[in-house]
């Protein structure tokens, strides 16, 4: 290169000085792109996972959710049909034990102390133990309901979008009708008819909760089925079922996963709200929402003397923390999977 330059005049030329071509070829690569790796493709899910792991807020939220779920699981021993499945007990007291019956020094609404770190509730029970156990109901119901509704919504939406025509018309009118009711109102009515209880709550939130997934998946499928690979699969003689579930449905998954992760929080809030209204589980159950029922009466009627803030603050903080963490995970998944275009998780980071 230097030889070549000497043949030309130096005037009017831009000279690049200090350019060392050997150092450039030897320096550290700026990205992890390599010539050999360029040909390989990384799957959508793997790439999403990598991005998710790099998102510090979402990973922090994941740690919180896992810790809360573990705390609920290990709070008290679990027995299934008389067999102890889980022998550990993090909670110092049984959540239904009325403390003043055993210890005359304890009274209703005792303030937080070393022995009772979150205080004593309105019926003389240890609030900290109740808080740990309280996650069991809301968290597990949240995951079960979202699992059920997302699966059914996937099938419903895939069938509706794939077949189109009158089938689609009827199926979507049903979804429109369900959409006219707020989910909480439907859940309230179902609980009013069936009575409270764990599986009744699951049913109350699942029975109509799939409609949102159905509508979302149908919209995705309408776009996906125009792709050439669908035509190719059909031309090769694949049956409808295999076209829908092997070629179309997997491509509709990313927005579904985003919506599902954002919905866990709303189911948890819904379960807690029913508990608060006295329509979820037994009134004495240690469930976060149910625990707030009694405290409302105390607040409204005006407690004599000291205000027992701990009975109101802690259960709500638990619900809030869990739902917030779940929503941060949902936003994180949304960013990682690029589901933004579908408009599902609008408002997250782009």
């Amino acid at each position: 290169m230097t030889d070549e330059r000497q043949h030309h005049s130096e005037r009017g030329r831009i000279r690049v000085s200090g350019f060392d071509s050997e150092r450039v070829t030897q320096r550290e690569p700026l990205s992890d792109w390599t010539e050999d790796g360029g040909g390989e493709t990384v799957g959508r899910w793997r790439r999403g996972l990598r991005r998710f792991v790099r998102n510090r807020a979402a990973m922090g939220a994941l740690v919180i959710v896992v810790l809360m779920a573990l705390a609920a699981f290990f709070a008290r021993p679990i027995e299934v049909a008389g067999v102890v499945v889980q022998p550990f007990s993090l909670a110092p007291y049984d959540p239904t034990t009325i403390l003043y019956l055993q210890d005359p020094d304890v009274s209703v609404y005792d303030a937080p102390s070393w022995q009772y770190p979150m205080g004593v509730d309105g019926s003389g029970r240890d609030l900290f133990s109740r808080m740990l156990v309280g996650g069991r109901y809301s968290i597990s119901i949240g995951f079960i309901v979202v699992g059920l509704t997302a699966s059914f919504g996937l099938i419903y939406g895939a069938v509706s979008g794939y077949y189109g025509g009158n089938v689609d018309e009827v199926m979507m009118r049903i979804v429109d009708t369900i959409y006219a009711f707020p989910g909480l109102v439907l859940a309230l009515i179902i609980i009013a008819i069936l009575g409270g209880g764990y599986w009744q709550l699951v049913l109350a939130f699942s029975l109509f909760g799939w409609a949102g997934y159905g509508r979302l998946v149908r919209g995705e499928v309408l776009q996906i089925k125009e792709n050439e690979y669908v035509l190719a699969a059909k031309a090769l003689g694949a049956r409808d079922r295999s076209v829908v579930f092997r070629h179309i449905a997997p491509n509709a998954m990313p927005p579904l996963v985003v919506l599902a992760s954002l919905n866990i929080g709303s189911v948890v809030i819904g379960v807690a709200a029913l508990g608060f209204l006295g329509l979820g589980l037994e009134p004495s159950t240690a469930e976060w929402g149910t625990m707030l029922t009694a405290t409302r009466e105390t607040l409204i009627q005006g407690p004599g003397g000291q205000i027992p803030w701990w009975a109101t603050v802690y259960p709500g903080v638990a619900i809030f923390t869990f739902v917030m963490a779940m929503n941060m995970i949902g936003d994180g998944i949304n960013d990682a999977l690029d589901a933004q275009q579908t408009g599902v998780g609008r408002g997250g980071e782009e």
Partner: protein
Amino acid sequence: MSLQRFIVKRALSIIPIMFGVSVITFGMFHLTPGDPVSQLVALNPDVSAAEEAALRERWGLDGPVWQQYLDWISNVLVGDFGQELRTGREVSDIVWRRLPETIALGLFGWAFALVIAIPAGIYAAVNKGKLGDTVSRFLALSGISIPNFWLGLMLILIFSLYLGVFPVLAPSEPLYHPDMLWYLILPGITIGTASAASIMRVMRTSMTEELNKEYVTAARAKGLPERTVILKHVLRNSLISVVTLAATLTASIVAGSVVVEVVFNWPGLGREFINAINQREINVVMAITLFTGFFVILANFVADIVYAALDPRIRYD
């Protein structure tokens, strides 16, 4: 298709949905075992079969289900929702008395949400990536994550019990009085917070998208002050996406009113609904459920029309 024809067509499409809503409402109570009569009988084993049949006839619970549905729906269409089973009061009287209270609460919640969310969304989009954006995004995420009943309890705890700024209980008599604003503030904030958070998130996203478009560059290039670019050009286009949220948010405010009215003892439809559920007054529950569906459908309809009117690119089909 002209806008007028679109409105007519859209209005006609409400009819099958309203029909579906009435079928679901009725079906949930009448296709499940255990009507109010059999529940009463279960409590009172002395009731004879003849008395049971008489009661069933009086409450319109005899005959095949489709017959019951036709009787019920033809009465509902002329505004007769039946009577309360225990007291014999007209359900429509109860609904009309409670409805204004709930509407007042809902409107206040809506107003609160818009007043907070739109400036916050603009601020976040303009200052994207800066500290203020991060803080307001965190607040918006908190707003959609906070359970509304707990927010209400915390507001009571802080503002009523510790600071003594707002009264605790809503008065039981109907509130057509300037004082009512004081009672409205805490429940209104509680009911509007989740909507405010959702609007803000959507506002920020759509505004960010709009800011990257070429007409913004053109407006800036011709020397318009940044204020005018944002408030006159970008804001108007971003607001369109807020309109699409209106229906979802109306559903969330309607559902929210059930819970919030119980927290604050607000004398509206939501509290009446919970009372009716606890006392198994199915006529009241069905009437309020129908109203709920009606409101959400209406909001959807209005949102679609406003959307079509605002955005001329939309094809009406």
